[in-house]
């Protein structure tokens, strides 16, 4: 259905809109929620299109119709008359519009209910805490040794309903992964949640959807929908502490990161670095992006980011640290080992 839905949606509104990559698009069928959105969207689109065409038809007819010699206009002194047919037409139009809207309201209500019900059965629970301008991710588990902290990246097993608990540390943000589900705000002092049941393995991009200050545009997160096996593999790997530095260069980096500025804000499991101000770095190098989707992960970007974050993401809380060249090499070398 939803593939046709998408096709229909596109055909109806924007021909050829689908010819590009969709990892941050509502034209998707990667989750139960977005599929329901697409079905409902097309229903609305069709009915609205019909109403629109009716209006335009009436407009055109009114402009081009050939008129009786005596029209109900001031020049013919009949401007207080009016065509009796129009009165019935008015009532008819009112009824049509009314029923159409009632129908849409009901459709919307049903979709809303069914989404709420889908939300009921939750298997995996994640706590997402928004900060200016990054996402703090915590996988909850009854067994505290199994709860794991990461940042700016979600891994979800396909087909498993997941409940994401949404908090904020500072201002209002909004969690939005268009290809999977609608948005939900993260509000300081309140707790919201959103349920997603991904149905398609793939990589999707989400982005903060509520204006949250200077770097609102650079507050993205990546969602990996994996097979259950791959998810468990990832999970177990993430639970590991960071590997000890192998090379002397990496060791130098390790000493700087754990002994100097970095550790004031960042935590790396298995090392003295335990700051909670910034994202957890334990498996930094295994992530796809740096600085909440500001740039793809890679040696070059790591160099750039560590050397001068403030010109790459002005206003971000990550300060520009005056690193000597050898320190910079060492730090990047160590961060790269955090696979």
């Amino acid at each position: 259905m939803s593939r046709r839905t998408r096709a229909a949606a596109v055909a109806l509104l924007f021909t050829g809109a689908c010819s590009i990559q969709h990892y941050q698009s509502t034209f998707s069928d990667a989750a139960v929620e977005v599929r329901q959105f697409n079905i409902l969207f097309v229903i609305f689109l069709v009915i609205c299109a019909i109403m629109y065409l009716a209006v335009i038809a009436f407009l055109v007819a009114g402009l081009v119709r050939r008129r009786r010699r005596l029209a109900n206009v001031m020049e013919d002194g009949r401007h207080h008359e009016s065509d009796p047919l129009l009165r019935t037409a008015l009532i008819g139009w009112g009824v049509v519009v009314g029923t159409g809207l009632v129908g849409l309201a009901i459709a919307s209500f049903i979709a809303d209910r069914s989404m709420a019900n889908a939300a009921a059965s939750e298997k995996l629970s994640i706590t997402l805490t928004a900060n200016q301008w990054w996402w703090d991710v915590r996988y909850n588990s009854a067994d505290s040794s199994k709860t794991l902290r990461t940042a700016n990246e979600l891994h979800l097993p396909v087909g498993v309903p997941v409940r994401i608990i949404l908090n904020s540390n500072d201002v209002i943000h909004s969690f939005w992964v268009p290809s999977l589900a609608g948005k939900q705000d993260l509000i300081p002092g309140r707790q919201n949640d959103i349920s997603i049941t991904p149905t398609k393995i793939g990589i999707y991009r989400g982005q903060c959807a509520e204006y949250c200050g200077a770097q609102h545009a650079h507050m993205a997160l990546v969602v990996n929908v994996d097979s259950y096996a791959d998810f468990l593999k990832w999970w177990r790997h993430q639970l590991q502490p960071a590997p000890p530095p192998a090379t002397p260069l990496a060791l130098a980096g390790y000493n700087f990161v754990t002994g100097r500025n970095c550790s004031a804000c960042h935590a790396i499991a298995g090392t003295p670095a335990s700051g909670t101000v910034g994202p957890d770095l334990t498996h930094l190098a295994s992530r796809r992006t740096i600085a909440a989707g500001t740039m793809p992960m890679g040696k070059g970007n790591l160099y750039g980011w560590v050397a001068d974050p403030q010109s790459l993401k002005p206003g971000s809380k990550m300060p520009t640290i005056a690193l000597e060249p050898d320190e910079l090499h060492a730090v990047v070398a160590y961060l790269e080992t955090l696979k």
Partner: protein
Amino acid sequence: MSSRFRASLLILGVAATALAACNREERHSRAKPIGETVPTGQSPDTIFPGSTTAQPLDARASLYDNNAPALSEGQFLYTRMNCVGCHSHGGGGMGVALMDDEWRYGGRLDQIAASIAEGRPNGMPAWRAKLTDDQIWKLAAYVRSLSGQPSKDVVNSRADAMSATSPATLTPREPVRSSDSAQQ
């Protein structure tokens, strides 16, 4: 800076507002050039309580002492670096009170910055290794604001947190004792 601002305000209001606007609201997100450091004029061993030093005020102080974004970033660091742990919200506890008028190691912005960077006897750790100079200056600016030093229109009335102190916009400016004359 702030005194110059006031003077010029008397002379030429508009120009002054412009000046104020530029300096008080500008976010210096781009950090200072490499190599610049916090003043190290007084290292812990040469400092003893009540000492006054007649050095001129560090020029960089003017970048921070009446700059609203700098103060709020200082506030962010003050809570997130857990200064609250010892100094509470300025009232003091394990550490000295920061909102009163007494400054053992000088209440001037560069002196506070030095205290944060170098640490002080009886438990104040040195932050030079953990924070950048820019951060230290901002933190110092915030600490200085706890006793109402900066002009009222650059400070935050309150944080979005449990209210511990009366609004900074209403705290009276404490005189600065056992500091030096360069205080404005």
